[in-house]
């Protein structure tokens, strides 16, 4: 009863709390470290997202929550909207932010870097939450730019040349992507006279202007999601950023633009999509899986390997589009492609962040991440190697991890819709992922010259909390595999009503 009363106010609170955190951290620039403050904001975010999830899964409540800002309704005003899909992504963001905020408080030992890091860190969260709740096409542009600019500044934080060059390239790609998106929105506004997503969905017709708008929006979003062949900026940017930033960029930022792709293709402008275009996205996704895995296998640096693994995992996400089309009702019931992909998104966010933390801790300990130079470290860094291994198991899709459930659901979708070729791509991609993960594990478990190598290396001990943060995320990725039910139910409820 009380929950239903406060539920509508959750939406503006979810955007405001991280913004407040950014301002607080900006004002407290001289304080160091800031573990308690930021853990508190992280907890508040988890609490709000949790309340939203509960409110949306109550049996008698609406499946979609709206908040009309300042009482101005569409088309003039801006609405915030949350359904099951948005709530799950908000929860993922909140959980990752909580763990990574604790990690960051220990990671940034340098006071100056810490002072610059925290406001940008929470601004990024504001942008992410804003994207997931946006009910307005122009508001999406603004939140995308908040994400883009905050990410660029965060990548550049380490200040070395490689990071600055990667940040500059990412900034140019981000601006180009946003402008393509904005041009698409301009065309939509010209055609339909509204920016409200729900109104656009009901007004949209299949005509050349809508096709042009959807193409421009998609190109912009694909640039930001780094789907092959637009992935060239991702490996240097994700590999040269500070560890918690890499984790959030790979785990959440590419998912924000992917979430918008899902919204535009399946919710807002499904009239303008064609089977050919949906299949093309699947082909690009498959190419990304193969190219990403091969490049990850050939990488010499650990963080570059993990970044290329993101290119491959982004490829899987795009299998949603062909799998949702031919079996047009399949993704609306609980076993379908959308549920599988959302599962995949959450599993990848947890596992990839855990993997970046493990890689970052190894880098912290040895001051480099050259894979050949890490021979036999499993005995010195057991916790981080263990984290890497179980996160890797989820990425490969070994049971009982969340990655396994996601791939299982995807395979089911591919076979039930009669598109066996995507099933082949999913299975082969899993094998390739196993190849690069076991290549690294092979090196670190090689004990042949362990004693002499370890004497040369002078490993710096990693604080236990930093190692535990990674382990916590990796364990969550495994535990998610054990209770898939509630999430699938929440998604099926919201999909059934919007159908």
């Amino acid at each position, binding site marked *: 009863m009380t929950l239903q009363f406060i539920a509508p106010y959750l939406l503006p609170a979810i955007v405001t709390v991280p913004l407040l955190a950014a301002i607080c951290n900006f004002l407290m620039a001289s304080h160091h470290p800031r573990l308690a403050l930021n853990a508190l904001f992280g907890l508040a975010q988890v609490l709000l997202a949790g309340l939203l999830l509960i409110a949306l899964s109550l049996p008698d409540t609406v499946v979609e929550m709206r908040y009309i800002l300042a009482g101005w309704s569409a*088309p*003039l005003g801006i609405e915030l909207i949350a359904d099951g899909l948005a709530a799950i992504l908000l929860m993922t963001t909140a959980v990752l932010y909580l763990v990574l905020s604790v990690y960051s408080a220990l990671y940034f030992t340098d006071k100056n870097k810490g002072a610059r890091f925290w406001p940008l860190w929470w601004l990024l969260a504001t942008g992410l939450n804003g994207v997931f709740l946006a009910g307005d096409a*122009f508001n999406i*542009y*603004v939140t995308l*730019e908040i994400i*883009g*600019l905050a990410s*660029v*500044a965060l990548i*550049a934080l380490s*200040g070395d*040349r490689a990071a*600055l*060059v990667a*940040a*500059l390239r990412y*900034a*140019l790609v*981000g*601006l*180009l992507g*946003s*402008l393509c998106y*904005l*041009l698409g929105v*301009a*065309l939509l*506004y*010209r055609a339909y*006279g509204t*920016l409200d997503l729900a109104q656009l969905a009901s007004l949209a017709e299949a005509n050349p202007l809508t096709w042009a708008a959807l193409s421009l929006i998609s190109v912009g979003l694909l640039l930001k999601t780094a789907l092959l062949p637009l992935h060239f900026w991702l490996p240097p940017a994700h590999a040269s950023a500070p560890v918690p930033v890499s984790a959030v960029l790979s785990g959440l930022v590419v998912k924000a633009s992917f979430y918008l792709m899902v919204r535009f293709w399946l919710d807002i402008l499904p009239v303008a999509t064609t089977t050919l275009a949906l299949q093309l996205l699947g082909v690009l996704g498959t190419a990304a899986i193969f190219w990403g895995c091969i490049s990850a296998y050939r990488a010499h640096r650990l963080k570059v390997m993990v970044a290329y693994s993101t290119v491959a995992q982004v490829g899987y996400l795009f299998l949603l589009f062909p799998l949702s089309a031919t079996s047009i009702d399949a993704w609306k019931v609980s076993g379908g492609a959308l549920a599988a992909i959302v599962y995949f998104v959450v599993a990848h966010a947890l596992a990839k962040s855990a993997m970046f933390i493990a890689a970052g801790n190894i880098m912290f300990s040895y001051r480099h991440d050259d894979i050949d130079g890490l021979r036999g470290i499993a005995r010195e860094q057991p916790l981080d190697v263990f984290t890497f291994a179980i996160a890797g198991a989820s990425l490969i899709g070994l049971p009982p991890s969340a990655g396994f459930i996601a791939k299982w659901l995807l395979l089911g979708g591919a076979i039930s819709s009669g598109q066996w070729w995507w099933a082949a791509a999913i299975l082969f991609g899993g094998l390739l992922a196993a190849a690069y993960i076991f290549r690294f594990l092979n090196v670190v478990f090689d004990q042949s010259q362990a004693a002499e190598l370890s004497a040369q290396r002078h490993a710096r001990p990693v604080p236990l909390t930093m190692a535990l943060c990674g382990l916590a995320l990796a364990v969550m990725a495994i535990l998610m595999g054990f209770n898939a039910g509630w999430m699938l139910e929440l998604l099926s409820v919201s999909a059934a009503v919007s159908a």
Partner: protein
Amino acid sequence: MTQELIYSVTGIALFAIGLFGLIVAGHIVRKLVAINMMGIGVFMLFLATALHGPDTVDPIPHALVLTGIVVAVAGTCLCLWLAISISKLDNEKRKNPQQ
């Protein structure tokens, strides 16, 4: 109607020229000018759309363009700062090649 069409076509042409420049240009400042040109193209299309309605001028595109300009300024500043930092690092390296 014709006036609106001229503005719209010019806007899209500016976007296309900017995109071409962004891909072709080698220098970072040229790339930034190209990106800003693309942005101006989009803004012009928005402003032309304000005339698109039946009789009165639609105020919403103006608000959108204002927001867009603010974002463009912020993005350009950040890119320029990065470019300056990179060239500073390069100059230092040129002065002390031993490091």
